């Protein structure tokens, strides 16, 4: 639990710290019409259509339609168990790896469906990377952790592996901390560094979309701030979807926010709008901490 979250301030105060994103916060009232992006706006990077995910008898995600705008940060919030992770995992076919998971509906990447049986999930995941809640470095050296993905990716010519490792580590703002200890084990790093190592690992594949499932929930405020800074930097070239339990975090780093409850997408809109004038009662209750 973040101590900050417990103060349950009025919703608008979340925005006080998350200096509003001018462009994103502009009045796109068309949003209120539905979950799709406003017509005439940039076409979405990814698009979920009537997505339903079941684990055997459990329906984890119910009929969710949601657009992921390109080169922006989309935050997903909602109470525990509401299906955020499940939704996120269906954006890069990671639910394929869960025995018993059944996905129906459709997900598009750049207008192309990624759900068909003829689609290779491996290729999808190379374009849509993922970072998990618990950092799990591979049992190899720091260098090898990233070099592994460089080799896995290997889709862009013959640039030197070492260069690409360095580039990814720099992108993840980790290079200066590890450049003298690349041979050490990845698990010898601190929790925050491990998480950035995992981000570097994901970036080394050069994905177009990065899915982050509560990447900071196990980290202290300083490490969290580092990751948030990183996200703000990365969103310039990357589409990011981030699941978070911290509303401050959503307010600080996202352009748009989606609120999930009990497997359904209740509401999605500009982060500013969501935190000041939410359309749905449930949303207001949740973000003001009045949720059961």
């Amino acid at each position, binding site marked *: 639990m973040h101590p900050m979250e417990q103060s349950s301030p009025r919703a608008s105060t979340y925005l006080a710290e998350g200096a509003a994103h001018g462009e994103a916060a502009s009045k796109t009232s068309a949003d209120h019409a539905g979950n799709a992006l406003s017509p005439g706006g940039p076409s979405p990077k990814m698009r979920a259509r009537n997505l339903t995910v079941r684990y055997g008898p459990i329906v984890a995600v119910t009929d969710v339609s949601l657009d992921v705008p390109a080169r922006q940060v989309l935050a997903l919030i909602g109470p525990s168990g509401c299906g955020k992770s499940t939704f996120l995992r269906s954006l890069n076919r990671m639910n394929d*790896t869960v025995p018993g998971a059944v996905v129906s509906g459709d997900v598009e990447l750049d207008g192309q469906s990624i759900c068909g049986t003829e689609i290779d999930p491996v290729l*999808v995941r190379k374009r849509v990377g993922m970072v*998990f809640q618990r950092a*799990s470095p591979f049992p190899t050296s720091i260098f090898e952790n990233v070099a592994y993905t460089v080799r*896995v990716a290997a889709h862009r010519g013959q640039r030197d592996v070492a260069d690409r490792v360095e580039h990814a580590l720099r992108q993840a703002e980790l290079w200066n901390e590890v450049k003298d200890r690349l041979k050490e084990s990845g698990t010898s790093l601190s929790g925050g560094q491990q998480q950035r190592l995992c981000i570097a690992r994901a970036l080394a594949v050069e994905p177009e979309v990065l899915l982050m499932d509560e990447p900071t929930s196990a980290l202290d405020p300083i490490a969290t701030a580092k990751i948030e800074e990183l996200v703000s930097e990365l969103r310039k070239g990357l589409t990011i979807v981030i699941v978070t339990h911290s509303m401050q975090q959503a307010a600080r780093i996202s352009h748009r926010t989606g609120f999930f409850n009990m497997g359904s997408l209740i509401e999605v809109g500009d982060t500013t709008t969501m935190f000041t004038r939410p359309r749905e009662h449930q949303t207001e209750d949740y973000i003001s901490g009045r949720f059961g």
Partner: protein
Amino acid sequence: MVADSGMVSVSAHGERSRSFRRRGPRALQGWTSGDALFRKVCTAFGLAIVALLALLLYELARGSSLSLSRFGFGFAFEKVWDPVAEKFGAATFIYGTMVTSVIALLVAVPLGVGIAIFLVEMAPPAVGNIIGFLVELLAAIPSIVYGLWGLFVLAPLVRDHVAPFLHATLGFLPFFSGESHGVGMLTAGLVLSIMVLPFIAAVSRDVLAAVPQPLREGSLALGATKWETIWGVVLPYGRTGIGGSVILALGRALGETMAVTMVIGNTPQIVLSLFEPGYTMSSVIANEYSEASGPLYLSSLTELGLLLFIATFAVNGTARALIWRMAHGPGGRA
């Protein structure tokens, strides 16, 4: 180890029962003394194992003292084994033991690790359970059965098909020169490989099953294929434990007697061709112990037993240590 922990807890318990008694006059001594007795008995059992091992080692050393003092270290390097002339050397038997064990591992390691990968990473749970059970069943088959199978099924197969094929394709190597008469080091090694397979497969399976799921997911989420994930993440994580399983299997292969004796041909010689018959340390002990005439003959056989004992003890100790480190240290890194 057993003895260690036993003694520690005994003394700890001793402290506890003393302070307990001090507290009140209404002694619950019946309980504590009964418990203490139970503990002492169990500790005695634990210590008995250590004593037994020590005694075994001592007896082997005592039994081989004659041979030790006569031949010294040269015993291990002397090729001649001539009971009539009372000249005894272990080199041919050590060679036979090593060659058959190496063949066994060369065949069984890839097969066993492959089975483990299949069971953990690919097979649906139901299939995995059945095959896992069958593999473990292999370990329960008496070695005389393996011996019979080796003699009547495998030996003709090696003679008519395996050996000619190897000779035709890899005949330029000294290991596959000449022709096979069925029994020989290759056949013995192959029988051994099937006998040690369950050890490698079962232990490796447990090792792979212990690899944390987030590591696999982390790799798959990067766009790695299943194969890349297994080769690049799962196996490196489990390498220490798998190494342990291999050494455990080696320990078993070194000491296996009955099946090997039946198919190796029992000819003390050092030749490179694996088609040739050979002789192992355990086989010669089994074959000649009952008819060993004269104290030096007996002593030399006992020394072979001593060498075998030390070798398997060291090998098994290493295996246990590796598997233990795998289970208790993250990733089992150095």
